[in-house]
């Protein structure tokens, strides 16, 4: 609605001057000046204060994130393999390809810890080691020479760490006997015991210690 124009009577009324204000102008001016100074000071200090707040928040967030990352146990990520995993997989795949090309079919590797005797050991490597039977036998002999050395070293241990004397001797005799049998140096144990007792003497010095 448009403002209606004032009539002459309204203008005469409006010319009446209200009684002078009795408010404390000095106090109001003082308050206004004080407020303007305070506002200016607040505006001036707002920027550093906000920068400080943002910095503090960022530092807190970074600290929490870092502590969470450090405190979390490492778990392999199957979906994203590491460079080491990729390299090992590539090497293994190349080796497997080479072995597959050299051998007619893939055979499991022998378990050296399980093969405690030369025949068993040679049996285990016969399908894995692409060598003639004689070479396999030599390989088994060398392997059991190392085994004998380790047994001797173990015998040097204090008694409490050694197996019982009889068990140790029995194991050693049996192993060496089987080894010699495999190397075709002696006849079978049953036959050597009955027909050629000097074979044990050559090995152990006396046939009285033969356990079997």
């Amino acid at each position, binding site marked *: 609605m448009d403002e209606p124009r004032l009539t002459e*009577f309204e203008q005469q009324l409006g010319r*009446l001057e209200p009684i002078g204000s009795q408010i404390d102008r000095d106090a109001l001016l003082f308050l206004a000046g004080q407020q303007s100074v305070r506002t200016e000071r607040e505006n001036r200090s707002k920027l550093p204060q906000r920068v400080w707040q943002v910095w503090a928040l960022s530092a807190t967030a970074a600290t929490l994130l870092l502590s969470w990352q450090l405190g979390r146990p490492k778990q392999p990520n199957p979906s994203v393999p590491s460079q080491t995993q990729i390299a090992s997989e590539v090497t293994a795949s190349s080796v497997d390809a080479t072995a597959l090309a050299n051998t007619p079919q893939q055979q499991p590797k022998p378990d050296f810890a399980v093969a405690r005797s030369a025949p068993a050991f040679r049996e285990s490597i016969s399908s894995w080691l692409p060598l003639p039977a004689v070479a396999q036998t030599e390989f088994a002999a060398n392997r059991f020479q190392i085994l004998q050395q380790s047994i001797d070293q173990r015998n040097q241990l204090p008694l409490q760490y050694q197996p019982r004397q009889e068990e140790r001797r029995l194991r050693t005799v049996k192993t060496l006997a089987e080894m010699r049998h495999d190397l075709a140096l002696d006849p079978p144990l049953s036959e050597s015991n009955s027909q050629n007792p000097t074979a044990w003497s050559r090995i152990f010095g006396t046939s009285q210690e033969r356990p079997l």
Partner: protein
Amino acid sequence: MDRYAAPLELFASQWTQSPADIVQEAFIELIRTESFPDDPGAWLFKVVRNKSLNAARSGRRRRERESSVAKREALFEPSSLDAINTEEATAALQELPDEQREVIVAKLWGNQTLETIAEMVGVSVATVHRRYMAGIESLRTRFQVKWTNQD
């Protein structure tokens, strides 16, 4: 402050015996406000009205007891140049209903628009206009002035 102080005191004097205190509180509130209003005049009239009504409600009994002995105070400065006698104007204004008087004071001495007054009072512009016209007609009758519409 010089522009609004006297009209605001005249406006507040409709409801309270100490209009200067009300106006001073309104100015202090304006100084301390966070966002300065676009129209400080309208803002001041609204705040003064609310404060005056609150003061009138709280001191109604005391004011009624004192009003019987209180001397009618002049609302306008005495002047021989004005065609309308100030004492008669004061008496005529005080005899008007509150709803008409506040509209006339806010418009004639506060230079507020009808729309602003309507927003302040909380009624429609048409209602404000009707109250204004009724109040002016009462004053004209009181002063026996031929109210010739200039339009």
